[in-house]
C-alpha cells in the first residue's frame, strides 16, 4: 500500500486583529492509493483549512503554515513555491467545493472551464481538450454533452453543476481528489447520486479521495477510513469499522450518538453534544474536549493526551486510553451492534 499523501504534524494559523487563530494544531493522517478517507467533525474544527492547506490555497496573509509537512508522492508540498504548486493543482491533486452554485464561473461556458485545465496541464490542443471535455461530461452522467458543453453554469441545475465540477476536477486524472462537503448544498436525492458517482469514478480512474463531510451516513457509504477532528486536532482515526463499532474517544461517541441510525428502529434519542468547541485564539493546554466531556478527569484539563495506538490502524488521543484511567464504556446510542 503506497502512501499518496502523508500529512505530518500540520499547524496552520491565521493572523487576525485579535491575534493568532490556531485553526489547525498538529494534524497527522495519510491517504493510500485508491483509498477514501473521510474527515469528520463539527463546524469550525479545521477540516476546510486542512484540505485547502494541502492544495496551498490558504491566502497568505493572513494564513500561514506554522509547522509540519505535507508529503505528496515523496515531496513536501509545504515547501513548494507558487510556481511548483501550479503544476500540482488540478493535475495531481484536484478539489471540489461545497456550493456548486458559486464555485463555477458564471460568465464562462462549462466546456471552457473543463478544457482550460487540460490545456494548462496536458499540452492538449483546443480540439483535443474539447473532445476530452465531452467525454468527461458523459462520464459524470450529463446527458447530451455535445450541446451541454456550450452552455453556461446558470443553465445547469444544482446537481448537474456539481457533476460538472467533478468533471473539471477529474479531467486531468488526479491522483488525489479532495471533496469539501460536495453534497451539503444539494437535495437529499441528488446527494446520493453524487456520492454514487464519486464511488463509481474512483474505481474507473483509480484516484484517492479525501472526503470532508458532516454526514456520517455518507461516511458509512463511501469511506475506507475516518479521521475525526476536533478543535484543529485529530482526536481519533481508524478504519471505518473501527470508528463505527469500536469508537474510543468520547467526542466520537457523541458524534455517533447524534447520527440517525437505520440499523435500529427503536426511538433512541438523537443527542447533540452540549456545549461548544474552545476558542482557537486561545486554545486550552489540555484536551480541547475537556469542557464538554462527561468523563473529564483532572489530568485532562492540564495536559494534552498523547496519541495512542488501539491497533496499527486505529489511533486515539484521550486519557481514557491510559492504563491508569478508569474503564469507561461508550454510551449505548454510540456503538453500532455487529
Amino acid at each position, binding site marked *: 500500500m503506497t502512501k499518496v499523501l502523508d500529512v505530518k504534524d500540520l499547524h496552520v494559523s491565521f493572523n487576525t486583529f485579535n491575534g493568532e487563530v490556531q485553526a489547525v494544531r498538529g494534524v497527522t493522517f495519510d491517504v493510500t492509493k485508491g483509498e477514501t478517507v473521510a474527515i469528520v467533525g463539527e463546524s469550525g474544527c479545521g477540516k476546510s483549512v486542512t484540505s485547502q492547506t494541502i492544495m496551498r490555497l490558504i491566502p497568505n496573509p493572513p494564513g500561514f503554515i506554522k509547522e509540519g509537512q505535507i508529503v505528496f508522492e515523496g515531496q513536501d508540498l509545504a515547501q513548494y513555491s507558487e510556481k511548483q504548486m501550479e503544476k500540482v493543482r488540478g493535475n495531481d491533486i484536484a478539489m471540489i467545493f461545497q456550493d456548486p452554485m*458559486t464555485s463555477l*464561473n458564471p460568465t464562462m461556458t462549462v466546456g471552457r472551464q473543463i478544457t482550460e485545465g487540460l490545456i494548462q496541464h496536458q499540452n492538449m490542443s483546443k480540439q483535443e481538450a474539447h473532445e476530452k471535455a465531452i467525454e468527461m461530461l458523459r462520464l459524470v452522467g450529463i446527458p447530451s454533452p455535445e450541446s451541454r458543453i456550450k452552455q453556461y453554469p446558470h443553465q445547469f441545475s444544482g446537481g448537474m453543476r456539481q457533476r460538472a465540477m467533478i468533471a473539471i476536477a477529474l479531467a486531468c486524472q488526479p491522483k488525489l481528489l479532495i471533496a469539501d462537503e460536495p453534497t451539503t448544498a444539494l437535495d437529499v436525492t441528488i446527494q446520493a447520486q453524487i456520492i454514487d458517482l464519486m464511488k463509481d469514478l474512483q474505481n474507473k480512474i483509480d484516484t484517492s479521495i479525501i472526503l470532508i463531510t458532516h454526514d456520517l451516513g455518507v461516511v458509512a457509504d463511501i469511506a475506507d477510513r475516518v479521521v475525526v477532528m476536533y478543535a484543529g486536532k485529530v482526536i481519533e482515526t481508524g478504519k471505518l469499522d473501527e470508528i463505527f463499532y469500536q469508537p474510543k474517544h468520547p467526542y466520537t461517541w457523541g458524534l455517533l450518538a447524534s447520527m440517525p441510525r437505520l440499523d435500529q428502529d427503536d426511538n433512541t434519542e438523537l443527542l447533540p453534544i452540549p456545549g461548544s468547541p474552545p476558542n482557537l485564539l486561545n486554545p486550552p493546554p489540555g484536551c480541547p474536549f475537556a469542557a464538554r466531556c462527561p468523563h473529564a478527569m483532572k489530568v485532562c484539563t492540564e495536559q494534552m493526551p498523547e496519541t495512542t495506538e488501539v491497533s496499527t490502524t486505529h489511533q486515539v488521543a484521550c486519557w481514557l486510553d491510559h492504563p491508569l484511567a478508569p474503564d469507561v464504556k461508550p454510551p449505548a446510542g454510540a456503538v453500532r451492534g455487529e
Partner: protein
Amino acid sequence: MLKYTLKRLSYMVVTLWIIATVTFFLMHLLPGTPLKNEEKLPEHIKEQIMEKYGLNDPLPVQYLNFMGGLVQGDLGASYTQDGREVSGMIAEGFPVSAFIGGQAVVFGSIVGLLLGLIAALKRGTWMDNLSTMIAVFGISIPNFVLGALLAYFVGVKWGILPVALWESYASSIMPSFALALVVVAIISRYIRTEMVEVLDAEYMKTAKAKGLPRRTVVFRHALRNALIPAITILGPLTVNIITGSLVIEQIFALPGIGEYFVKSIVNNDYTMITGITIFYSILIVSVIFIVDILYGIIDPRIRLSGAKE
C-alpha cells in the same frame, strides 16, 4: 444574441419617437415666437415668414412634416441663421464635440480600468491609497473648474498647450483631460469594488485549484466578471461627458455643438433647439444601446434570458 439585439433596437426606436414628439409639442407650447423684433415687422411680412416656415399649417400637419423630415435626417431650417440647415450646423459642430468627448471617455476608461485593477490587486498598499485619492479628486472637482485651471496654468502661464480655439490635435488635449478625470474616478472605483468582490468569490478558488497561473486567474476569470457593472455605468457616464462638454467647449472656445446650443436657446431658435435636442437624444440612446449590447456580450446570463422572451 440577434433576438436580443433586435429587441434592444426596437426599444431604441420607440424611445426616440417619443422624445421627438414630446420635444416638438413642447416647443409649440412655449410662449413667444422665433421672429426677431416681432412688433416692428409689418403684418404681411410676418405672415410671409410664418408661411415660409410652415408655421401657419395646422399643428398635426406641422407634426407630420416634421416627422417626415426627421426620418430623412432633415431637421428643418434654422429660424435665425438665415438659409442654414440645422442638420448642416450640427454636422459642422459635432465632430469637434465628439472628438473631445470620445477621447475623454476612451482615455478615462483605460486609465480608470488600470487604476482600479491595480488598487484591487494591491489592496491596502500605497498604490491603493493613491488611486482612492485620485478618485476623490476626480469626483469632487467639477470639470469646468479643472478646465479653467488647466487653461490658466498649462495654457496661459506655462504656454505648454494652446489655450483656446481648434487648431491642431494639441487643442483637444486639455478639454479632453478636463472631461476625462471624472471618468477615471468613477471607472476606477467601480473596477476596484467589483474586482475585490470577484477575487473573493468561490469560483476564483476553483480557478486557482485548477492550477491556472495567477495572471490567467486574474484576467480570464476575475476581470471579465468585474467589468460587467463598470460597463453599465459607461452609458450614463458618456452621456454625462457629452452634456458636460457644452461648458468645456465654451471655456476653450471650441467650435463644437455647445456654441450653437447656447445661441439657439438665447435666440428662441425653435428648429435649432428641437434639432439639437433630438440629435443628443439619438446620441444618448445609441450609447445606451451599444452598452446594452456590450453587456450582453460579456454576460451570458443577460444575453440568453433576453433571447428567450
